[in-house]
């Protein structure tokens, strides 16, 4: 019922503010279940008739090829790693995220600037430098952070995967000679970074160990709240 109310209010004529559109972000370490959850959100919103755009970390066509080449050759330093990912993000931001938000879309982002803040800082980049790089990016309306014990996430990733990739395992940090051990330490540090942002960045923490359906309900409830208040704002503009 609430859905219907929200649905009626879509009106392209009122695109006149930078704050139009809704930006929803999922964050969390690999294996936290965030991609599954955002996929279900995507399906849900589309089925309700919303204009939805989904964007993923490290997926810009122009940049990804270079990044993956650099990764394969293990040629990237923390700084170039960080810069290439931020180039990738900027490309998606300038091409898609920003204009689509202006057009009133709901943009769903699987990983956003917080991934860079967490990972690059763990790799040894200066935090305020990384923060500056992404300072132009709009703050999300909702950021869901999927919290899981490291062992849970790690075992989800490792099972069914014979080998971890060099950078994925954080091998460039020299934490351990053993890939899996390195991966665990690396992910642990990323979790610490995420946790340090929970309050300041208004993360909505979702317990990633709960049933998928239960998590999805919590996520949807939060999204509905934002959709409703967004609607009210639009009414005021009209």
């Amino acid at each position, binding site marked *: 019922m609430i859905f219907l109310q929200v649905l009626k209010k879509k009106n392209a004529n009122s695109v006149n503010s930078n704050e139009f559109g809704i930006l929803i972000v999922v964050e969390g370490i690999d294996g936290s279940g965030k991609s599954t959850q955002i996929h279900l959100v995507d399906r849900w919103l589309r089925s309700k008739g919303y204009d939805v755009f989904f964007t993923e970390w490290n997926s810009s066509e*122009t940049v990804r090829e270079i990044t993956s080449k650099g990764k394969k050759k293990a040629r990237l330093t923390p700084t170039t790693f960080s810069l290439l990912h931020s180039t990738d993000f900027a490309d998606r931001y300038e091409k898609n995220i920003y204009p689509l938000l202006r057009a009133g879309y709901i943009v769903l982002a699987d990983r956003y600037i917080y991934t860079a803040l967490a990972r690059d800082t763990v790799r040894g980049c200066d935090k305020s*430098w990384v923060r500056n790089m992404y300072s132009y990016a709009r703050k999300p309306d909702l950021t869901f952070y999927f919290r899981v014990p490291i062992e849970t996430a790690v075992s989800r990733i490792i099972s069914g995967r014979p080998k971890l990739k060099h950078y994925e395992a954080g091998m460039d940090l020299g934490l351990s000679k053993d890939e899996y051990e390195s991966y665990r330490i690396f992910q642990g540090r990323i979790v610490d970074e995420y946790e340090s942002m929970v309050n300041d960045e208004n993360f909505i923490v979702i317990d990633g160990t709960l049933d998928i359906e239960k998590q999805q309900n919590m996520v949807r409830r939060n999204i509905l709240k934002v959709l409703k208040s967004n609607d009210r704002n639009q009414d005021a503009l009209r």
Partner: protein
Amino acid sequence: MTSRIPSTRNGSSVSQVKHEQNNKKIKFIRDPGIKYLKDIEINGSFIVIEGPDASGRSTQIQKITQKLEADGHAVVNTGLKRSDLISKGIIEAKRNYVGRRTMALYYAADFADQLENRIIPALKAGFVVISDRYIYTLIARSSVRGINKNWLHQLHSFAIKPDLIFYLDVDPHNLIHRVFKKNKTLDYYESGADLGISDDIFDSFIKYQYLLKREFNTMQKKYGLLNVNGDNNIDDIYDEIQSKISNFLNITKKTETII
């Protein structure tokens, strides 16, 4: 000359001042720079030549390199868009009309790759590194295109501080003739045609070059750029640059001979 012998570094006969001159800690444009490289020691010298296209940068670099090598200094040349990993991506991105911020970051990535894989290793090994353009060009270009200045300065703050930065300052009207002598045609981006400041490419070039010039002038104090009158003839410019480089290297050399 001879390479430094580590044991003399801490020798009691060497005064503190000389000691510091010989083992220069890496210095970044702004702290903390690249945090994981902060303990690196630099033994070489770092010279940057800035200036617009056709300002005579490459001619000067060629002459300086010849002279330095004749004097026994090992030289490494570097510049923008030269990373074998990333430069291809930039060319591709230009073709695809990538956004301005994306472009700025792409260039910064390309530069970072050169900095960490070429410039810093060469400086560690005691080379004289000459860079054909540096972050100042990157900042000026993006700034003229409306990207926030503070953002740009901070983005490039991981760069290392050059020992000498020469800026070949050429009057845009003079410059355009040199461009025609060199290429017979105006480059799209070097004319700022993407800025849409004029439908006339000649006007666009002049206006764009004035805008860049203004950016360089505002950076001069902040970064210690040495202004060189690029309207002078090649030999005069060379004499001016060369004497400053010689002076600088002599200071470093003296301490080396004492050791």
